[in-house]
């Protein structure tokens, strides 16, 4: 990427607009992107690197006069692909460290509430692990507020398939958590 030269003919105002837009997007999407990446199994440091690289790609995309449509799903897709390049980390899976989560859920609750919360999270953890990787990724993107069309763009699947996967995943979770 170093030394890349992108020829274009942009008015100065457009260049400044691009810079401002990239900054705004960074503030809006930095945390969701990092959360999604750690959900995929990256460490926080790796996620941070992938987020940085994704925004670098965005700068290049805008500077080259690339489409400004669906920038949010564009960024998630770049980050998603960037995570796939971290093959070693990608082998880790969401939900590995249940104990800290269950502990965090307990807070200042009574011992009985702690036990109930732990049981609930253990069921949820088991349910999440029963999902396929594709189902889990779709649910994470849905939890980030992406529409089915955007999820499909990130995952590279048709929107109808996205709807089927999300429906199936939610149904699985509901069945396993409804005890």
């Amino acid at each position, binding site marked *: 990427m170093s030394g890349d030269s992108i020829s274009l003919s942009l008015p100065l105002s457009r260049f*400044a607009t691009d810079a401002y837009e990239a*900054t705004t997007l960074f503030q809006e999407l*930095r945390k969701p992107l*990092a959360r999604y990446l750690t959900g995929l199994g990256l460490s926080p*440091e790796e996620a941070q690197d992938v987020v940085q690289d994704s925004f670098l790609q965005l700068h290049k995309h805008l500077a080259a006069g690339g489409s400004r449509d669906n920038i949010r799903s564009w960024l998630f897709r770049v980050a998603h692909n960037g995570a796939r390049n971290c093959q070693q980390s990608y082998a880790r899976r969401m939900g590995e460290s249940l104990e800290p989560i269950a502990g965090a859920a307990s807070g200042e609750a009574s011992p009985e509430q702690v036990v109930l919360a732990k049981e609930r999270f253990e069921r949820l953890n088991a349910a999440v692990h029963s999902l396929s990787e594709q189902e889990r990724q779709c649910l994470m993107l849905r939890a980030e507020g992406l529409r089915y069309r955007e999820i499909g763009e990130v995952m590279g699947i048709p929107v109808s398939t996205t709807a089927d996967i999300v429906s199936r995943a939610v149904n699985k979770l509901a069945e396993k958590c*409804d005890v």
Partner: protein
Amino acid sequence: MCNFNGNLVAWMDGELASDIAVNVEKHVQSCADCRRQVALYESASRDFTAYYVMRDQSQPVAVSANRIPRWAPYAAAVVAILLVALMSLRPDKPAQIVSETAKVTTPAVVESSAEPARPTQSQSTPVAHQRHVRNNSQAAESPAPSAIQIAIPAEAMFPPGAVPEGVAYIASLAPDGSVQSIRLQP
């Protein structure tokens, strides 16, 4: 199980076409099983989101995760103002532009010929260290029409962490003020 069951999650998410959504809504109002199913799906969705967010919060924070200064959104606007001010100072003599803008530390201004000079062995210094202003005699000797190159550190435009350190844009401006090319230069 109702025939509508496969549409309930998409209906909850507002992803159905309006005519289908109306039918599903009417059905859910009259079907106790589907209402129960919707409640289960909503509960499962909330639980998953809470699980997903909590899992993220249980991760150690990356070093640069919370270093976004409040001024960051305005940085690009400041740079834009500098650039516009620079262009408004553009007189007929390019050498004067250089002397005016050389006082500005960021963005650095490099006045050069339209075709960027190929680095020679004697010019093997990394490009990042070549942000300097040519002397006026060199500029005066150049018969070719001049372009202005502006080195803009990415840190001046984007919040810390948005791009790797040391990355800079080199923008070449045409005499009419339009950006002819932008090089991303770490």
